[in-house]
């Protein structure tokens, strides 16, 4: 049978990816440039037995998603800069209470109301540090309409597998462009379903600190327990014990660190012998690829490192390339004033030059601009 091929908007592809992954709930609040995700879900969810609700604000939208997940549904919300800011308190709740859910942030320029219709990549640090306290973060960064679909499926899988919220960091160019999308057959992409606990309900410890992973039993399944946004012990009840607080926080962070290889996905292009690397995500990586090809045409050994997971930061990948001691410099083009560059500098530890290429001009950074930076290292 022929593959189902569509010409589709990136935001719609997120919605379709979510449905493929088994999403049954969307709670949202309209905000440009993410709104098409909500609109598509409003139309499509009932067709697959799910429900959509437009909540009264961003905070409520995030809260409803967490509630739906606790009741057993794979749940999605989508927003943009200011909405992402508003969601942060409840995102922190989902982090601490280990609630699987997916949050799309179609990045736009900020701070504040900022640039509603302009693309941006300026929420990289908000994704990492937006909510207070220490916690792990997974954020995926698609760069095409096809990846909007595929990475959304992966985001749901990661959410279920590691029992945590997962961000999709995209931007208004990728979100609103139209490209070819090949929709996979059912079963073609892996879809991870939420496991049920196999212990007796009275023995269930929903936050067992001595285990790497405990299934989240849905409310109504016969496993009665307590969830609180207070720091809690293994049984879910509040504790002020600083030792337990430390143990649990470290456990959550280590859960992701230990699974770096499963979570962190990076596309490397012509990096084997590269002397100059370009490190870029999303729409910027598309320009960067052109720049690398052009540099190679000019005899410059350039390569592209394109993270599809920006959090956890792909430092093992970078480390491997840098340990060869052949890299003279790394160019980091990004549509902000250097959020990702700081991280690359941190990993580079002075072993090579790291040059940021920043733009707030609301247009993609062009291949020529990136090439010019590459040339400075040779």
């Amino acid at each position, binding site marked *: 049978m022929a593959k189902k091929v569509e010409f589709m908007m990136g935001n719609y592809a997120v919605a379709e990816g979510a449905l493929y992954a088994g999403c049954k*709930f969307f*709670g949202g609040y309209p905000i440009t440039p993410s709104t098409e995700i909500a609109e598509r879900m409003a139309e499509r969810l*009932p067709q697959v037995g799910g429900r959509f609700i437009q909540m009264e604000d961003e905070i409520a939208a995030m809260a409803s*998603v967490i*509630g739906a997940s606790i009741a057993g*549904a794979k749940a999605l919300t989508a927003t943009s800069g200011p909405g992402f800011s508003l969601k942060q308190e*409840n995102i922190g709740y989902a982090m601490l209470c280990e609630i699987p859910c997916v949050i799309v942030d179609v990045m736009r320029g900020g701070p504040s109301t900022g640039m509603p219709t302009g693309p941006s990549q300026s929420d990289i640090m908000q994704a990492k540090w937006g909510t207070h306290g220490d916690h792990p973060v997974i954020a995926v960064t698609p760069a095409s309409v096809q990846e909007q679909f595929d990475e959304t499926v992966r985001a749901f899988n990661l959410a279920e597998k590691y029992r945590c919220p997962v961000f999709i960091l995209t931007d208004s160019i990728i979100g609103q462009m139209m490209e070819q999308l090949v929709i996979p057959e059912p079963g073609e992409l892996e879809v991870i379903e939420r496991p049920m606990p196999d212990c007796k309900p009275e023995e269930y410890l929903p936050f067992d600190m001595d285990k790497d992973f405990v299934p989240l039993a849905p409310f109504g399944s016969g496993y009665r327990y307590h969830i*609180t*946004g207070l720091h809690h012990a293994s049984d879910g009840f509040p504790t002020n014990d600083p030792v337990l607080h430390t143990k649990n926080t470290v456990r959550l962070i280590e859960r992701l660190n230990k699974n770096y290889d499963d979570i962190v996905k990076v596309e490397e292009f012509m990096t084997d012998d590269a002397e100059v690397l370009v490190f870029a995500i999303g729409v910027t990586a598309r320009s960067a690829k052109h720049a690398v090809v052009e540099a190679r045409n000019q005899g410059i050994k350039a390569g592209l490192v394109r993270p599809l997971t920006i959090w956890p930061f792909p430092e093992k990948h970078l480390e491997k390339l840098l340990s060869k001691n052949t890299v003279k410099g790394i160019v980091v083009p990004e549509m902000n004033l250097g959020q990702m560059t700081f991280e690359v500098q941190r990993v580079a530890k002075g072993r090579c030059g790291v040059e940021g290429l920043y733009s707030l001009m609301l247009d993609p950074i062009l291949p020529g601009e990136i090439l010019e930076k590459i040339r400075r290292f040779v």
Partner: protein
Amino acid sequence: MAYDYAKYLRKGKLPHIWCAGCTYGIVLKSLIRAIDSLQWDKNDVAIVSGIGCASRLPGYVDFNTLHTTHGRSIAFATGVKLANPNLKVLAMGGDGDMTAIGGNHFIHACRRNIDMTVFVFNNNIYGMTGAQYSPTTPKGAWATTSPYGMSENNFTITDLAIGAGATFVARTTAYHVAHCEKTMKEAFQHKGLSVVEIINACPTGFGRKNKFKTPTSMLLWMKDSAVNVEKAKNMSQEELAGKFTIGVLHKIEKPEYIETYDATVGLKK
């Protein structure tokens, strides 16, 4: 024989955190009796709360319980109910939690008419943070953030709920324990969103500095000030001055949200 509350309590989680003289324990008992009288399966009940003294209640009862962020209980509860409409969902919180930080969620829940019950435990003060004024603190009353007396106008929660479109609105008090239980039961049986305001006493935060010398004096104030809504119909404005009504204040039939949604979008489960 004494009433057996034990089967609904999480015994390992007691004693509770509430101050001596606080009335939340009384309300908790009414809640247990109301649920028990309906013979609900414990697995089918989800209790969702926000932040504050009142919002600690779910921790003590053996249901599916969810202690959320400040003011957001109704929004969390909405997601729970939409994902699993078979659950009996109760959202609860104090007056500040529900009508200040959670005010937006409260009014929109009233408008939507999802089949769940919202309890507002009204003790006219922020108790847990140490007696700051709330949207229901009476004019002139002392609070740590109104040391010269409350100068803002206050909400009447039940009027707010009715104005926002709630289909069942009632008020009761912690003093009137049997009435409290009966009102809760009626709210649970209502199809659609039911709002129950429960007048409570915070002797530590409110009473002590507002001329209620003892916890008992606050209960006596409830006893003396509450007028049954039926009786109030035959009373003059003068007779009702300084009093408040208790009972079912508003009850109408309107299509329930999830049923309407499912029918509108052609959703077949």
